[in-house]
């Protein structure tokens, strides 16, 4: 049985950011993720906005962490080579009452240290967004706001952490935690046992259950469900800016979000749920999204929807909607990074720093690693290259000349690279998140059989063992009768 200084439970954007932060020090670290891939819980059910930090109450933990995290993103995007765009945010007011709210948000943002915030008028808004609703009167403009693909960021964190020595283990749900008399923790998963000195609980919606395994009952959690829509890249009059309506008391409201790859996301609804696995889409939620976005962009063509999805924001109850980042009050060496609801994406890098400090305070010696490498190599994206570079690459490796996904121009070479990547893709959706094969308007209708065949060949598995995502999500069953093998 291996002993680690730290075991991180949960491989979402929070857990992977913590893994990367810990990999900067001379420590042995493992990350255990229950799912078949990194970033497939709350992280993938997300609109990807890196909120700049005008929302949280000044002085709260969330305010500090949100602003710090958002400020870290530009450097992270360069070091780790993940996609990031800078569309800025409009929070749009339609009335005098809204204007008062926007002014409070402006003050709040200034107190929190958000840069370049301003209230702008309808004309200034329309210069940037000519198709905006005519009754939009003013907006809080946050020009520094960025948008990322949250799962790409999580994979980037995990790959960089792995390059710096962290073990990233998927399909490892933690089923038991024991605090031994020697102070160490013993963790069980269905197949293995692990020992460690410190635990970081970054288990998303399941953080309260993981804490209970260690005998900790400091908080309870429930998910806040959100429906989201994805619109085709070829939609006309696409928004250039993330646009929220002036918020209500409980939610930021339904926004349109330009994505890194040129799609538009509409999201999200906000409904407290009991079931932590209920990532279904709901018909009233989908309708609310369409109605909601039409208040901002009345001409947005709902016929361009190519996908609906949903996410669950992990909420710690009775915690003023704040994060719960602290060492356990009862079990020493057990650090919570829990309740990472919105703005979790923006906050993740700063949560990692906060956890590092908590580990330091808890007595872990944090000696910097001299050979720490903060960089992650840019992956090959054939669609982004010049024709000469494409030609050169294909001559070097013909697999980069075989298009698999026609909608997103993804080649077999890119898919093979993802399957054998540092955090390998073993499912159809894992390939999709890394390469965009199947992410386009045909939603894998044309390329699914090709990706399955490549996965089967590269992994040495029968076609009928290839899954969509979770264990049991096989895509095909047996052979048709009388068919040859």
């Amino acid at each position, binding site marked *: 049985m291996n002993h680690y200084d730290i075991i991180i439970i949960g491989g979402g954007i929070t857990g992977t950011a913590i893994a990367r932060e810990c990999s900067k020090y001379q420590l042995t670290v493992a990350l255990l993720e229950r799912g078949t891939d990194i970033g497939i819980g709350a992280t993938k059910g997300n609109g990807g906005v890196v909120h700049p930090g005008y929302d949280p109450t000044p002085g709260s933990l969330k305010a500090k962490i949100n602003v710090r995290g958002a400020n870290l993103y530009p450097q992270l995007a360069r070091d780790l080579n993940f996609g990031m765009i800078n569309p800025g945010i409009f929070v749009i007011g339609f009335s005098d009452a809204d204007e008062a709210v926007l002014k409070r948000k402006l003050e709040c943002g200034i107190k929190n240290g958000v840069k370049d915030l301003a209230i702008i008028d309808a004309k200034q808004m329309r210069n940037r967004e000519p198709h905006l609703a005519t009754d939009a009167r003013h907006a809080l403009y946050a020009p520094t706001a960025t948008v990322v693909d949250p799962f790409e960021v999580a994979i980037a964190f995990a790959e960089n952490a792995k390059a710096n020595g962290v073990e990233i283990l998927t399909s490892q749900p933690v089923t038991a935690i024991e605090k031994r008399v020697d102070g160490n923790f013993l963790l069980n998963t269905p197949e293995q046992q692990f020992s460690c000195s410190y635990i970081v609980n970054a288990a998303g919606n399941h953080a309260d259950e993981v804490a209970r395994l260690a005998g900790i009952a400091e908080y309870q959690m429930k998910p806040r469900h959100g429906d989201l829509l994805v619109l085709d890249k070829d939609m006309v009059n696409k928004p250039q800016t993330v646009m929220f309506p002036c918020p209500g008391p409980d939610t930021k409201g339904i926004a349109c979000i330009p994505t890194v790859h040129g799609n538009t996301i509409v999201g999200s609804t906000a409904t407290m749920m009991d079931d932590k696995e209920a990532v279904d*889409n*709901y*018909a009233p939620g989908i309708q609310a999204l369409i109605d909601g976005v039409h208040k901002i962009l009345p001409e947005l063509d709902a016929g361009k929807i190519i996908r609906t999805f949903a996410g669950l924001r992990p909420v710690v109850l009775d915690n003023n909607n704040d994060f719960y980042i602290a060492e356990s009050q009862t079990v020493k060496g057990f650090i919570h990074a829990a309740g990472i609801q919105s703005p979790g994406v923006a906050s993740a890098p700063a949560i990692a720093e906060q956890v590092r400090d908590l580990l330091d305070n808890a007595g872990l010696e944090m000696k910097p690693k001299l050979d720490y490498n903060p960089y992650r190599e840019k992956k090959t994206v054939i669609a982004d290259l010049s024709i000469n570079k494409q030609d050169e690459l294909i001559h070097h490796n013909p697999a980069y000349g075989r298009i698999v996904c026609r909608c997103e121009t993804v080649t077999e070479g890119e898919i093979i690279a993802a399957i054998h990547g540092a955090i390998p893709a073993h499912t159809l959706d894992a390939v999709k998140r890394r390469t965009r094969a199947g992410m386009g308007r045909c939603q894998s209708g044309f390329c699914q059989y090709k990706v399955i065949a490549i996965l089967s060949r590269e992994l040495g598995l029968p076609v009928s063992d290839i899954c969509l*995502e979770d264990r*049991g*999500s096989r895509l095909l069953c047996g052979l048709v009768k009388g068919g040859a093998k």
Partner: protein
Amino acid sequence: MKQLKYDVVVIGGGPAGMAAALKAKEKGATVAIIERNDELGGILNQCIHSGFGLSYFKQELTGPEYAELFINQVAAAGIDVYLKTMVIDLTPEREVKAMNEDGMLVLAAGAIVLAMGCRERTRGAIKIPGSRPAGVLTAGLAQRYVNIENRKPGERIVILGSGDIGLIMARRLTLEGMQVLGVYELMPYANGLYRNIKNCLDDFDIPLHLSTTVTNIIGHPHLEAIEVARVDENLAVIEATREVIACDTLLLSIGLIPENELSQKSGISLNPRTNGPLVNEDLATDQPGIFACGNVLHVHDLVDNVTLEAEQAGDAAAAYALEQKAVATVSETRPAENKATITIGPGENVGYTVPAKMTVPSPKEIRILFRVRRPLEQAAVVIQAGTKILYQGKPRAFKPSVMEAVVIKPEEINGLNGTEQTITVSVREVK
């Protein structure tokens, strides 16, 4: 990087692309076909059922047989075929950028024929709520799995949508020993051809539930059940009729969309009614020298009709390319002709028309293709310019599943003044 030059470059090697290429070659043009798959034939290769060729070849063929007749002709004609080659860009100047495993290709084309076909509408397009498990796929993908990959998608199948592919697959899966529980159709009528309802559902006792749709998808990580419900005349769900059906596979046969993302890179205009290019009577788009045919132009019912249309596009593309070449050689410009463009559009009960515009005066008769929007028991085609009736057909029945054609003669249109006239095609109920 390879640089090549052809009179006519055809994008897509399905039935439309092959027929267009053959006709262009016959007219004396140098021709290339660019096909992204491993072989020519397009979606016909997975359509192993019969029923193709009844009007064009006067015999009943399977999809692969129909394709083979063209593949053999293409091979004999001296047409350059680029297989496993994907076009990734297309400019208004008719430069085609493509890739295959040998590298990048840049083709300069005198004329281009767009023949990329269509894709299936997906779950996202109709926003079915519920979980997002394995086991939900389009009917065409299921057809690929069963007929080419030799794989079963599941055992207990429900089909949403009564499009032809769904109907064909209901029979196919039944023959392969899978249990097809039923076909559900939102509309009060079937969307597929009558012969497919009869031969694929009725003959196999597969129920067709009209005015019924899938309202929820249940199960994770794999599909376990769906919820269906009847809808009223406004297509709103009737709450009391919700019913859960256990199944492991949901096939979607909910419509086809012409694939024009590449076409749009060349700057052509699309017809919002068809999602295909806006074309004139020669199937020319509004970018000079770019033509379109087959399912990329509008979704057809029968491949025979695709072939006829594609021959027309190939003919026009070759004529354009050869004429441009001739003009360039003798460096003279054509005298301006006294011609005008009039628009053609759908009137009462008609969804769209192809072409959507034409040039007058016209030396030849014009074939206008269209579909009705709803079934009509007894109705007649009426073509009019303003209030003036140019043509009136005999009363008969019309169905949305059937692509209709009406021919308009030069003498009926040549008196029109292009600057102000619009021709509409209507199908009027006859009491």
